[in-house]
Protein backbone atom coordinates (compact mmCIF):
# COMPACT_ATOMS: atom_id res chain seq x y z
CA UNK A 1 0.00 0.00 0.00
CA UNK A 2 2.70 2.51 0.94
CA UNK A 3 4.72 1.40 -2.12
CA UNK A 4 1.70 2.20 -4.25
CA UNK A 5 1.29 5.63 -2.66
CA UNK A 6 4.91 6.44 -3.44
CA UNK A 7 4.68 5.41 -7.07
CA UNK A 8 3.86 7.88 -9.82
CA UNK A 9 0.51 6.20 -10.45
CA UNK A 10 -0.30 6.47 -6.75
CA UNK A 11 0.49 10.16 -6.75
CA UNK A 12 -1.74 10.86 -9.73
CA UNK A 13 -4.63 8.84 -8.36
CA UNK A 14 -4.26 10.60 -5.02
CA UNK A 15 -4.49 13.98 -6.69
CA UNK A 16 -7.39 12.80 -8.87
CA UNK A 17 -9.32 11.61 -5.82
CA UNK A 18 -8.67 14.89 -3.99
CA UNK A 19 -9.77 16.88 -7.05
CA UNK A 20 -12.91 14.77 -7.31
CA UNK A 21 -13.83 15.54 -3.69
CA UNK A 22 -12.91 19.22 -3.87
CA UNK A 23 -14.38 20.05 -7.28
CA UNK A 24 -17.15 17.43 -7.59
CA UNK A 25 -18.46 16.17 -4.29
CA UNK A 26 -18.11 19.21 -2.01
CA UNK A 27 -19.99 21.74 -4.24
CA UNK A 28 -22.67 19.09 -4.81
CA UNK A 29 -23.47 18.25 -1.19
CA UNK A 30 -22.65 21.52 0.60
CA UNK A 31 -24.97 24.54 0.72
CA UNK A 32 -23.58 27.91 -0.31
CA UNK A 33 -22.97 28.87 3.30
CA UNK A 34 -21.23 25.57 4.13
CA UNK A 35 -19.15 25.76 0.96
CA UNK A 36 -17.95 29.19 2.07
CA UNK A 37 -17.00 27.75 5.45
CA UNK A 38 -15.19 24.91 3.71
CA UNK A 39 -13.25 27.45 1.61
CA UNK A 40 -12.23 29.15 4.86
CA UNK A 41 -11.02 25.80 6.27
CA UNK A 42 -9.06 25.18 3.08
CA UNK A 43 -7.24 28.48 3.67
CA UNK A 44 -6.12 27.11 7.04
CA UNK A 45 -5.09 23.87 5.32
CA UNK A 46 -2.87 25.81 2.89
CA UNK A 47 -1.06 27.38 5.87
CA UNK A 48 -0.80 23.89 7.37
CA UNK A 49 0.96 22.47 4.30
CA UNK A 50 3.69 25.09 4.76
CA UNK A 51 4.00 24.37 8.48
CA UNK A 52 4.23 20.65 7.68
CA UNK A 53 7.24 21.42 5.50
CA UNK A 54 9.00 23.81 7.88
CA UNK A 55 8.16 22.03 11.14
CA UNK A 56 7.53 18.41 10.16
CA UNK A 57 10.39 18.06 7.69
CA UNK A 58 12.63 20.94 8.76
CA UNK A 59 12.18 20.86 12.53
CA UNK A 60 11.39 24.58 12.78
CA UNK A 61 8.42 25.09 15.13
CA UNK A 62 6.87 28.06 13.33
CA UNK A 63 4.61 29.41 16.06
CA UNK A 64 4.09 32.69 14.24
CA UNK A 65 2.68 31.89 10.82
CA UNK A 66 -0.05 34.44 11.56
CA UNK A 67 2.47 37.10 10.54
CA UNK A 68 2.74 35.84 6.96
CA UNK A 69 -0.94 34.88 6.81
CA UNK A 70 -1.73 38.42 7.97
CA UNK A 71 0.62 40.01 5.44
CA UNK A 72 -1.05 38.21 2.55
CA UNK A 73 -4.49 39.01 3.95
CA UNK A 74 -3.88 42.72 4.55
CA UNK A 75 -2.19 43.18 1.17
CA UNK A 76 -5.23 41.64 -0.54
CA UNK A 77 -7.68 43.59 1.66
CA UNK A 78 -5.95 46.86 0.79
CA UNK A 79 -6.42 46.16 -2.89
CA UNK A 80 -10.09 45.24 -2.44
CA UNK A 81 -10.72 48.41 -0.42
CA UNK A 82 -8.97 50.50 -3.06
CA UNK A 83 -10.99 48.87 -5.84
CA UNK A 84 -14.25 49.53 -3.94
CA UNK A 85 -13.33 53.18 -3.35
CA UNK A 86 -12.40 53.64 -6.96
CA UNK A 87 -15.73 52.13 -8.03
CA UNK A 88 -17.66 54.48 -5.74
CA UNK A 89 -15.78 57.75 -6.11
CA UNK A 90 -13.35 57.44 -9.00
CA UNK A 91 -9.55 57.16 -8.94
CA UNK A 92 -7.78 58.51 -5.85
CA UNK A 93 -10.83 58.19 -3.56
CA UNK A 94 -10.34 57.34 0.07
CA UNK A 95 -11.73 53.94 1.25
CA UNK A 96 -14.92 54.19 3.33
CA UNK A 97 -13.39 53.20 6.69
CA UNK A 98 -10.81 55.98 6.37
CA UNK A 99 -13.54 58.56 5.84
CA UNK A 100 -15.19 57.36 9.06
CA UNK A 101 -11.85 57.64 10.88
CA UNK A 102 -11.40 61.16 9.54
CA UNK A 103 -8.55 60.40 7.14
CA UNK A 104 -9.08 62.60 4.07
CA UNK A 105 -5.81 62.00 2.19
CA UNK A 106 -4.95 58.56 0.89
CA UNK A 107 -1.73 57.44 2.69
CA UNK A 108 1.11 57.15 0.15
CA UNK A 109 1.73 53.45 0.82
CA UNK A 110 -1.85 52.62 -0.17
CA UNK A 111 -1.62 54.09 -3.67
CA UNK A 112 0.19 51.20 -5.46
CA UNK A 113 -2.46 48.73 -4.25
CA UNK A 114 -4.90 50.17 -6.77
CA UNK A 115 -3.06 47.94 -9.22
CA UNK A 116 -4.14 44.27 -9.15
CA UNK A 117 -0.82 43.17 -10.68
CA UNK A 118 1.18 45.01 -8.03
CA UNK A 119 -1.01 43.50 -5.31
CA UNK A 120 -0.61 39.90 -6.51
CA UNK A 121 3.15 40.40 -6.90
CA UNK A 122 3.34 41.89 -3.39
CA UNK A 123 1.39 38.96 -1.94
CA UNK A 124 3.83 36.50 -3.51
CA UNK A 125 7.08 38.42 -2.95
CA UNK A 126 6.83 40.54 0.19
CA UNK A 127 6.16 37.88 2.87
CA UNK A 128 8.64 35.52 1.19
CA UNK A 129 11.33 38.19 1.20
CA UNK A 130 10.62 39.04 4.84
CA UNK A 131 10.91 35.33 5.71
CA UNK A 132 14.23 35.06 3.85
CA UNK A 133 15.71 38.06 5.69
CA UNK A 134 14.33 36.92 9.04
CA UNK A 135 15.46 33.35 8.41
CA UNK A 136 18.98 34.43 7.48
CA UNK A 137 19.21 36.60 10.60
CA UNK A 138 17.93 33.81 12.86
CA UNK A 139 19.38 30.62 11.37
CA UNK A 140 22.84 32.01 10.58
CA UNK A 141 23.09 32.72 14.30
CA UNK A 142 22.06 29.12 14.97
CA UNK A 143 18.93 30.10 16.87
CA UNK A 144 16.80 26.96 16.98
CA UNK A 145 14.42 24.79 18.97
CA UNK A 146 12.36 26.48 21.66
CA UNK A 147 14.20 29.79 21.16
CA UNK A 148 13.10 29.94 17.55
CA UNK A 149 9.53 29.00 18.53
CA UNK A 150 9.33 31.73 21.19
CA UNK A 151 10.84 34.26 18.82
CA UNK A 152 8.33 33.53 16.06
CA UNK A 153 5.43 33.60 18.52
CA UNK A 154 6.56 36.94 19.91
CA UNK A 155 6.71 38.21 16.36
CA UNK A 156 3.07 37.25 15.79
CA UNK A 157 2.08 39.09 18.97
CA UNK A 158 4.05 42.19 17.99
CA UNK A 159 2.58 42.11 14.48
CA UNK A 160 -0.99 42.08 15.81
CA UNK A 161 -0.24 44.94 18.24
CA UNK A 162 1.36 46.94 15.43
CA UNK A 163 -1.76 46.49 13.29
CA UNK A 164 -4.09 47.57 16.10
CA UNK A 165 -2.20 50.87 16.26
CA UNK A 166 -2.56 51.57 12.53
CA UNK A 167 -5.70 53.65 11.92
CA UNK A 168 -4.93 53.63 8.19
CA UNK A 169 -5.26 49.81 8.29
CA UNK A 170 -8.53 49.82 10.21
CA UNK A 171 -6.94 49.48 13.64
CA UNK A 172 -8.61 47.01 15.98
CA UNK A 173 -11.55 46.40 13.61
CA UNK A 174 -9.37 45.57 10.63
CA UNK A 175 -10.64 45.75 7.07
CA UNK A 176 -14.06 44.46 6.00
CA UNK A 177 -17.08 45.02 3.71
CA UNK A 178 -15.46 44.09 0.44
CA UNK A 179 -17.73 44.40 -2.59
CA UNK A 180 -15.58 43.46 -5.56
CA UNK A 181 -12.91 40.82 -6.18
CA UNK A 182 -10.97 41.73 -9.33
CA UNK A 183 -14.15 43.15 -10.87
CA UNK A 184 -16.56 40.42 -9.70
CA UNK A 185 -19.28 41.07 -7.10
CA UNK A 186 -18.29 39.07 -4.03
CA UNK A 187 -21.89 38.62 -2.79
CA UNK A 188 -22.98 36.83 -5.97
CA UNK A 189 -23.39 33.07 -5.18
CA UNK A 190 -21.82 32.14 -8.53
CA UNK A 191 -18.73 34.20 -7.73
CA UNK A 192 -18.62 32.75 -4.22
CA UNK A 193 -18.49 29.32 -5.79
CA UNK A 194 -15.71 30.53 -8.09
CA UNK A 195 -13.78 31.78 -5.03
CA UNK A 196 -14.17 28.33 -3.51
CA UNK A 197 -12.78 26.71 -6.66
CA UNK A 198 -9.79 29.08 -6.70
CA UNK A 199 -9.08 28.25 -3.07
CA UNK A 200 -9.38 24.50 -3.69
CA UNK A 201 -7.07 24.76 -6.70
CA UNK A 202 -4.57 26.69 -4.59
CA UNK A 203 -4.61 23.87 -2.02
CA UNK A 204 -3.86 21.27 -4.69
CA UNK A 205 -1.12 23.55 -6.01
CA UNK A 206 0.69 23.99 -2.69
CA UNK A 207 0.38 20.26 -1.94
CA UNK A 208 1.99 19.51 -5.33
CA UNK A 209 4.84 21.92 -4.58
CA UNK A 210 5.32 20.43 -1.11
CA UNK A 211 5.32 16.93 -2.60
CA UNK A 212 8.03 17.82 -5.10
CA UNK A 213 10.12 19.44 -2.35
CA UNK A 214 9.73 16.35 -0.14
CA UNK A 215 10.77 13.95 -2.87
CA UNK A 216 13.65 16.00 -4.18
CA UNK A 217 17.22 15.80 -2.95
CA UNK A 218 16.48 19.04 -1.12
CA UNK A 219 13.76 17.22 0.84
CA UNK A 220 16.24 14.59 1.98
CA UNK A 221 18.72 17.29 2.90
CA UNK A 222 16.05 19.11 4.92
CA UNK A 223 15.35 15.98 6.96
CA UNK A 224 19.10 15.57 7.46
CA UNK A 225 19.33 19.13 8.80
CA UNK A 226 16.37 18.45 11.11
CA UNK A 227 17.97 15.31 12.54
CA UNK A 228 21.66 16.28 12.70
CA UNK A 229 22.33 19.88 11.76
CA UNK A 230 25.99 19.81 12.86
CA UNK A 231 26.71 16.74 10.73
CA UNK A 232 25.30 18.52 7.66
CA UNK A 233 27.50 21.51 8.36
CA UNK A 234 30.57 19.29 8.68
CA UNK A 235 29.76 17.82 5.27
CA UNK A 236 30.24 21.25 3.71
CA UNK A 237 26.66 22.59 3.54
CA UNK A 238 25.50 25.89 4.96
CA UNK A 239 22.64 24.41 6.99
CA UNK A 240 21.11 27.87 7.56
CA UNK A 241 20.38 28.24 3.84
CA UNK A 242 18.63 24.87 3.76
CA UNK A 243 16.33 25.98 6.57
CA UNK A 244 15.70 29.43 5.09
CA UNK A 245 14.27 27.85 1.91
CA UNK A 246 11.69 25.77 3.81
CA UNK A 247 10.84 28.71 6.08
CA UNK A 248 10.34 31.02 3.10
CA UNK A 249 8.17 28.49 1.25
CA UNK A 250 6.01 28.09 4.38
CA UNK A 251 5.69 31.89 4.56
CA UNK A 252 4.66 32.04 0.89
CA UNK A 253 1.97 29.40 1.43
CA UNK A 254 0.66 31.29 4.49
CA UNK A 255 0.55 34.52 2.51
CA UNK A 256 -1.40 32.89 -0.34
CA UNK A 257 -3.83 31.48 2.23
CA UNK A 258 -4.27 34.89 3.83
CA UNK A 259 -4.89 36.55 0.47
CA UNK A 260 -7.65 34.01 -0.33
CA UNK A 261 -9.08 34.20 3.20
CA UNK A 262 -10.00 37.88 2.75
CA UNK A 263 -12.52 37.57 -0.13
CA UNK A 264 -13.76 34.20 1.19
CA UNK A 265 -14.50 35.38 4.74
CA UNK A 266 -15.01 39.07 4.06
CA UNK A 267 -12.99 40.44 6.98
CA UNK A 268 -9.44 40.54 8.24
CA UNK A 269 -8.56 41.98 11.64
CA UNK A 270 -5.64 41.74 14.07
CA UNK A 271 -7.58 39.02 15.92
CA UNK A 272 -7.10 36.69 12.91
CA UNK A 273 -3.32 37.08 12.65
CA UNK A 274 -1.99 37.17 16.24
CA UNK A 275 -0.80 34.55 18.68
CA UNK A 276 -4.03 32.58 19.08
CA UNK A 277 -4.63 31.94 15.36
CA UNK A 278 -0.93 31.10 14.96
CA UNK A 279 -1.29 28.41 17.62
CA UNK A 280 -4.47 27.17 15.91
CA UNK A 281 -2.44 26.62 12.72
CA UNK A 282 0.11 24.55 14.64
CA UNK A 283 -2.61 22.59 16.44
CA UNK A 284 -4.12 21.31 13.21
CA UNK A 285 -0.72 20.24 11.90
CA UNK A 286 0.18 18.46 15.15
CA UNK A 287 -3.12 16.60 15.24
CA UNK A 288 -2.97 15.61 11.58
CA UNK A 289 0.65 14.49 11.65
CA UNK A 290 3.34 17.02 10.95
CA UNK A 291 5.87 14.85 9.13
CA UNK A 292 3.45 13.60 6.47
CA UNK A 293 2.20 15.34 3.34
CA UNK A 294 -1.56 14.92 3.82
CA UNK A 295 -1.59 14.89 7.63
CA UNK A 296 -1.42 18.67 8.09
CA UNK A 297 -4.24 19.17 5.54
CA UNK A 298 -6.50 16.62 7.23
CA UNK A 299 -5.64 17.97 10.69
CA UNK A 300 -6.28 21.60 9.75
CA UNK A 301 -9.62 20.76 8.13
CA UNK A 302 -10.66 18.53 11.04
CA UNK A 303 -9.77 21.07 13.74
CA UNK A 304 -11.48 23.93 11.92
CA UNK A 305 -14.57 21.80 11.31
CA UNK A 306 -14.67 20.61 14.92
CA UNK A 307 -14.34 24.17 16.16
CA UNK A 308 -17.27 25.35 14.03
CA UNK A 309 -19.46 22.34 14.82
CA UNK A 310 -18.75 22.39 18.55
CA UNK A 311 -19.05 26.13 19.00
CA UNK A 312 -22.41 26.04 17.16
CA UNK A 313 -23.67 23.51 19.72
CA UNK A 314 -21.80 24.41 22.90
CA UNK A 315 -20.22 27.86 22.50
CA UNK A 316 -18.01 27.65 25.58
CA UNK A 317 -16.93 24.03 25.30
CA UNK A 318 -14.63 24.38 22.29
CA UNK A 319 -11.66 25.85 24.15
CA UNK A 320 -11.63 22.88 26.54
CA UNK A 321 -12.13 20.34 23.77
CA UNK A 322 -9.26 21.94 21.86
CA UNK A 323 -6.90 21.73 24.84
CA UNK A 324 -7.92 18.15 25.55
CA UNK A 325 -7.42 17.14 21.93
CA UNK A 326 -3.95 18.65 21.89
CA UNK A 327 -2.92 16.92 25.12
CA UNK A 328 -4.27 13.56 23.92
CA UNK A 329 -2.49 13.70 20.59
CA UNK A 330 0.85 14.81 22.05
CA UNK A 331 0.67 12.19 24.82
CA UNK A 332 -0.73 9.19 22.93
CA UNK A 333 -0.18 9.86 19.25
CA UNK A 334 2.85 12.12 18.75
CA UNK A 335 2.86 11.32 15.02
CA UNK A 336 -0.71 12.61 14.67
CA UNK A 337 -3.69 11.03 12.94
CA UNK A 338 -1.55 10.22 9.89
CA UNK A 339 0.60 7.84 11.96
CA UNK A 340 -2.34 5.55 12.80
CA UNK A 341 -2.01 3.24 9.73
CA UNK A 342 1.73 2.71 10.29
CA UNK A 343 1.08 2.17 13.99
CA UNK A 344 -1.64 -0.40 13.30
CA UNK A 345 0.67 -2.19 10.86
CA UNK A 346 3.47 -2.39 13.41
CA UNK A 347 1.04 -3.64 16.05
CA UNK A 348 -0.18 -6.36 13.67
CA UNK A 349 3.41 -7.33 12.81
CA UNK A 350 4.46 -7.72 16.44
CA UNK A 351 1.36 -9.84 17.07
CA UNK A 352 1.92 -12.21 14.13
CA UNK A 353 5.69 -12.37 14.67
CA UNK A 354 5.17 -13.22 18.38
CA UNK A 355 8.12 -14.47 20.43
CA UNK A 356 10.63 -16.41 18.22
CA UNK A 357 11.56 -13.27 16.28
CA UNK A 358 12.98 -11.76 19.46
CA UNK A 359 16.01 -14.03 19.19
CA UNK A 360 17.31 -12.15 16.15
CA UNK A 361 17.04 -8.78 17.87
Amino acid sequence: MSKFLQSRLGTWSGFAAAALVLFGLAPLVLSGFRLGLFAQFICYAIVAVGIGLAWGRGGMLTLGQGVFFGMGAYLMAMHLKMADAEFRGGPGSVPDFMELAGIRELPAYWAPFASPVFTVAAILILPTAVAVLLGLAVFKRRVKGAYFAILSQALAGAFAILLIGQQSLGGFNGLSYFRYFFGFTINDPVNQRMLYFITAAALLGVVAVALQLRRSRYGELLVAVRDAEERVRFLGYDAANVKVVAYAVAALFASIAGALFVPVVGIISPASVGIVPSIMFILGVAIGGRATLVGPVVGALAVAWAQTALSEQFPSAWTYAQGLLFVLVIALLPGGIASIPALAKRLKKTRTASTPAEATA
Partner: protein
Amino acid sequence: MNDIALTCTDVQVAFDGFKAVDGVDLTLRRGEVHFLIGPNGAGKTTLVDAVTGLTPYTGSVVKDGTELRGKKVHHIARAGVGRTFQTAAVFDNLTVAQNLDIAAGAARGPWTLLRRRKHLPESVVDTMKRIGLAEHADRAAGTLAHGQKQWLEIGMLLVGDADVLLLDEPIAGMGHEERETTGALLRDIAGERAVAVVEHDMDFMRANASRVTVLHAGSVLAAGGVDEVSADPRVQEVYLGAERGKETADAAAA
Protein backbone atom coordinates in the same frame (compact mmCIF):
# COMPACT_ATOMS: atom_id res chain seq x y z
CA MET B 1 55.00 9.22 -0.13
CA ASN B 2 55.67 12.20 2.08
CA ASP B 3 53.10 14.71 0.92
CA ILE B 4 52.10 17.17 3.67
CA ALA B 5 48.33 17.77 3.69
CA LEU B 6 47.75 19.72 6.90
CA THR B 7 50.03 21.67 9.21
CA CYS B 8 49.06 22.95 12.66
CA THR B 9 51.42 25.53 14.14
CA ASP B 10 51.26 26.66 17.78
CA VAL B 11 47.53 25.93 18.10
CA GLN B 12 46.12 27.16 21.42
CA VAL B 13 42.57 26.80 22.72
CA ALA B 14 41.58 28.45 25.99
CA PHE B 15 38.32 28.01 27.90
CA ASP B 16 37.95 30.75 30.52
CA GLY B 17 41.69 30.99 30.95
CA PHE B 18 42.21 27.20 31.07
CA LYS B 19 44.46 26.12 28.20
CA ALA B 20 42.85 22.97 26.81
CA VAL B 21 45.29 22.95 23.90
CA ASP B 22 48.56 24.72 24.62
CA GLY B 23 50.74 25.32 21.60
CA VAL B 24 50.41 22.14 19.57
CA ASP B 25 52.39 21.60 16.36
CA LEU B 26 51.14 18.78 14.16
CA THR B 27 51.77 17.72 10.57
CA LEU B 28 49.51 15.28 8.75
CA ARG B 29 50.83 13.59 5.61
CA ARG B 30 48.98 11.84 2.84
CA GLY B 31 49.48 8.11 2.88
CA GLU B 32 49.76 7.96 6.67
CA VAL B 33 47.45 6.90 9.50
CA HIS B 34 48.44 9.34 12.21
CA PHE B 35 47.30 8.47 15.74
CA LEU B 36 46.64 11.12 18.37
CA ILE B 37 46.81 9.47 21.76
CA GLY B 38 46.92 10.67 25.31
CA PRO B 39 45.03 10.41 28.59
CA ASN B 40 41.53 11.86 29.06
CA GLY B 41 41.56 15.65 28.98
CA ALA B 42 44.79 15.79 26.99
CA GLY B 43 43.10 18.00 24.40
CA LYS B 44 42.79 15.50 21.52
CA THR B 45 39.14 16.13 20.67
CA THR B 46 39.50 19.86 21.38
CA LEU B 47 42.28 19.97 18.79
CA VAL B 48 40.01 18.29 16.23
CA ASP B 49 37.21 20.75 17.15
CA ALA B 50 39.61 23.65 16.59
CA VAL B 51 40.88 22.42 13.21
CA THR B 52 37.33 21.84 11.94
CA GLY B 53 36.13 25.29 12.97
CA LEU B 54 33.95 24.37 15.94
CA THR B 55 36.15 26.02 18.57
CA PRO B 56 38.05 29.32 18.21
CA TYR B 57 41.82 29.15 18.64
CA THR B 58 45.04 31.06 18.13
CA GLY B 59 47.89 29.82 15.99
CA SER B 60 47.59 28.53 12.48
CA VAL B 61 46.19 25.55 10.58
CA VAL B 62 47.18 25.37 6.93
CA LYS B 63 45.86 22.87 4.41
CA ASP B 64 47.64 22.73 1.06
CA GLY B 65 48.72 26.37 1.41
CA THR B 66 45.33 27.72 2.62
CA GLU B 67 44.92 29.09 6.14
CA LEU B 68 41.85 27.54 7.77
CA ARG B 69 41.69 29.62 10.94
CA GLY B 70 38.63 31.89 11.04
CA LYS B 71 36.81 30.01 8.28
CA LYS B 72 33.31 28.71 8.86
CA VAL B 73 32.67 25.05 9.57
CA HIS B 74 31.15 24.33 6.16
CA HIS B 75 33.96 26.15 4.32
CA ILE B 76 36.56 24.06 6.12
CA ALA B 77 34.60 20.94 5.19
CA ARG B 78 34.48 22.08 1.54
CA ALA B 79 38.24 22.59 1.67
CA GLY B 80 38.50 18.83 2.17
CA VAL B 81 38.82 18.46 5.94
CA GLY B 82 36.28 15.90 7.19
CA ARG B 83 35.62 14.65 10.69
CA THR B 84 33.62 12.05 12.56
CA PHE B 85 32.24 12.26 16.08
CA GLN B 86 32.68 10.06 19.15
CA THR B 87 29.09 8.94 18.86
CA ALA B 88 28.49 8.37 15.17
CA ALA B 89 26.47 11.23 13.71
CA VAL B 90 24.45 9.84 10.81
CA PHE B 91 20.95 10.73 9.62
CA ASP B 92 18.92 8.05 11.39
CA ASN B 93 15.71 8.56 9.41
CA LEU B 94 17.39 8.36 6.00
CA THR B 95 18.70 5.25 4.27
CA VAL B 96 22.38 4.40 3.92
CA ALA B 97 22.22 5.43 0.24
CA GLN B 98 20.51 8.74 1.09
CA ASN B 99 23.09 9.47 3.79
CA LEU B 100 25.93 8.98 1.31
CA ASP B 101 24.13 10.84 -1.48
CA ILE B 102 23.80 13.90 0.76
CA ALA B 103 27.45 13.64 1.75
CA ALA B 104 28.44 13.53 -1.93
CA GLY B 105 26.41 16.60 -2.86
CA ALA B 106 27.73 19.65 -1.00
CA ALA B 107 28.61 21.23 -4.35
CA ARG B 108 25.21 20.63 -5.99
CA GLY B 109 23.36 23.59 -7.43
CA PRO B 110 19.75 24.50 -6.58
CA TRP B 111 18.40 22.97 -9.79
CA THR B 112 19.81 19.52 -9.01
CA LEU B 113 18.66 19.80 -5.40
CA LEU B 114 15.06 20.57 -6.32
CA ARG B 115 14.75 17.47 -8.50
CA ARG B 116 14.37 13.88 -7.57
CA ARG B 117 17.39 11.60 -7.49
CA LYS B 118 17.21 9.45 -10.63
CA HIS B 119 20.02 7.08 -9.71
CA LEU B 120 22.82 6.95 -7.19
CA PRO B 121 26.13 8.62 -8.11
CA GLU B 122 28.92 6.14 -8.91
CA SER B 123 31.00 7.35 -5.98
CA VAL B 124 28.16 6.43 -3.62
CA VAL B 125 27.83 2.92 -5.04
CA ASP B 126 31.60 2.35 -4.88
CA THR B 127 31.86 3.69 -1.35
CA MET B 128 29.00 1.49 -0.13
CA LYS B 129 31.02 -1.52 -1.28
CA ARG B 130 34.20 -0.17 0.25
CA ILE B 131 32.67 0.31 3.70
CA GLY B 132 30.84 -3.03 3.50
CA LEU B 133 27.30 -1.64 3.50
CA ALA B 134 26.33 -2.42 -0.12
CA GLU B 135 23.56 -4.83 0.88
CA HIS B 136 22.19 -2.32 3.41
CA ALA B 137 21.72 0.50 0.86
CA ASP B 138 18.00 0.89 1.55
CA ARG B 139 18.10 0.40 5.30
CA ALA B 140 17.46 3.37 7.57
CA ALA B 141 20.78 4.42 9.08
CA GLY B 142 19.20 4.43 12.53
CA THR B 143 18.72 0.65 12.36
CA LEU B 144 22.39 -0.10 11.65
CA ALA B 145 24.68 -1.70 14.21
CA HIS B 146 26.99 0.60 16.14
CA GLY B 147 30.05 -0.32 14.09
CA GLN B 148 28.22 0.00 10.79
CA LYS B 149 27.23 3.55 11.71
CA GLN B 150 30.89 4.42 12.25
CA TRP B 151 31.74 2.98 8.84
CA LEU B 152 28.90 4.89 7.26
CA GLU B 153 30.19 8.11 8.77
CA ILE B 154 33.67 7.41 7.40
CA GLY B 155 32.07 6.59 4.03
CA MET B 156 30.29 9.96 4.10
CA LEU B 157 33.67 11.68 4.33
CA LEU B 158 35.00 9.58 1.44
CA VAL B 159 32.17 10.44 -0.98
CA GLY B 160 32.49 14.07 0.07
CA ASP B 161 36.06 14.00 -1.30
CA ALA B 162 37.66 14.87 2.03
CA ASP B 163 41.40 14.23 1.84
CA VAL B 164 42.15 15.04 5.46
CA LEU B 165 40.08 12.76 7.71
CA LEU B 166 39.93 13.41 11.44
CA LEU B 167 38.33 10.42 13.15
CA ASP B 168 37.32 10.73 16.79
CA GLU B 169 37.47 7.30 18.47
CA PRO B 170 36.21 5.33 15.47
CA ILE B 171 36.44 1.94 17.22
CA ALA B 172 34.87 2.88 20.57
CA GLY B 173 32.44 0.13 21.51
CA MET B 174 33.41 -2.18 18.63
CA GLY B 175 34.02 -5.90 18.90
CA HIS B 176 37.31 -7.56 17.96
CA GLU B 177 36.33 -8.41 14.39
CA GLU B 178 34.89 -4.96 13.71
CA ARG B 179 38.14 -3.42 14.95
CA GLU B 180 40.17 -5.49 12.49
CA THR B 181 37.90 -4.45 9.62
CA THR B 182 38.08 -0.81 10.66
CA GLY B 183 41.88 -0.97 10.90
CA ALA B 184 42.09 -2.40 7.38
CA LEU B 185 39.67 0.27 6.12
CA LEU B 186 41.76 3.06 7.66
CA ARG B 187 45.00 1.77 6.11
CA ASP B 188 43.21 1.37 2.79
CA ILE B 189 41.74 4.88 2.64
CA ALA B 190 45.00 6.48 3.80
CA GLY B 191 46.50 5.55 0.42
CA GLU B 192 45.71 8.90 -1.13
CA ARG B 193 44.57 10.78 1.98
CA ALA B 194 45.84 11.96 5.36
CA VAL B 195 44.04 10.15 8.18
CA ALA B 196 44.25 11.25 11.82
CA VAL B 197 42.75 8.99 14.49
CA VAL B 198 42.00 10.01 18.07
CA GLU B 199 42.14 6.80 20.07
CA HIS B 200 42.65 5.29 23.51
CA ASP B 201 43.21 1.71 22.42
CA MET B 202 46.97 1.00 22.41
CA ASP B 203 46.74 -2.36 20.62
CA PHE B 204 44.73 -0.79 17.83
CA MET B 205 47.27 2.01 17.62
CA ARG B 206 50.22 -0.40 17.41
CA ALA B 207 48.57 -2.42 14.67
CA ASN B 208 47.60 0.49 12.41
CA ALA B 209 49.63 3.64 13.11
CA SER B 210 52.19 5.01 10.65
CA ARG B 211 52.98 7.84 13.06
CA VAL B 212 51.95 8.78 16.59
CA THR B 213 51.59 12.05 18.46
CA VAL B 214 51.12 11.85 22.21
CA LEU B 215 49.27 14.74 23.83
CA HIS B 216 49.38 15.42 27.54
CA ALA B 217 47.72 18.35 29.31
CA GLY B 218 47.27 20.21 26.05
CA SER B 219 50.85 19.88 24.77
CA VAL B 220 52.73 17.45 22.56
CA LEU B 221 54.60 15.07 24.82
CA ALA B 222 56.19 12.98 22.10
CA ALA B 223 55.87 12.39 18.37
CA GLY B 224 57.30 9.90 15.91
CA GLY B 225 57.05 6.26 14.86
CA VAL B 226 55.22 3.68 16.98
CA ASP B 227 58.35 2.04 18.45
CA GLU B 228 60.08 5.34 19.08
CA VAL B 229 57.11 6.76 20.97
CA SER B 230 56.42 3.56 22.91
CA ALA B 231 60.02 3.56 24.12
CA ASP B 232 59.86 7.16 25.30
CA PRO B 233 60.13 7.19 29.11
CA ARG B 234 57.88 10.26 29.45
CA VAL B 235 55.13 8.52 27.51
CA GLN B 236 55.46 5.43 29.66
CA GLU B 237 55.26 7.58 32.75
CA VAL B 238 52.06 9.30 31.60
CA TYR B 239 50.43 6.00 30.73
CA LEU B 240 51.85 3.99 33.63
CA GLY B 241 51.04 6.88 35.93
CA ALA B 242 47.48 6.73 34.71
CA GLU B 243 47.46 2.96 35.18
CA ARG B 244 48.90 3.29 38.68
CA GLY B 245 46.33 5.94 39.55
CA LYS B 246 43.61 3.61 38.34
CA GLU B 247 44.98 0.76 40.44
CA THR B 248 44.99 2.83 43.59
CA ALA B 249 41.47 3.94 42.85
CA ASP B 250 40.42 0.32 42.33
CA ALA B 251 42.17 -0.66 45.54
CA ALA B 252 40.41 2.12 47.40
CA ALA B 253 37.07 1.02 45.98
CA ALA B 254 37.66 -2.62 47.01
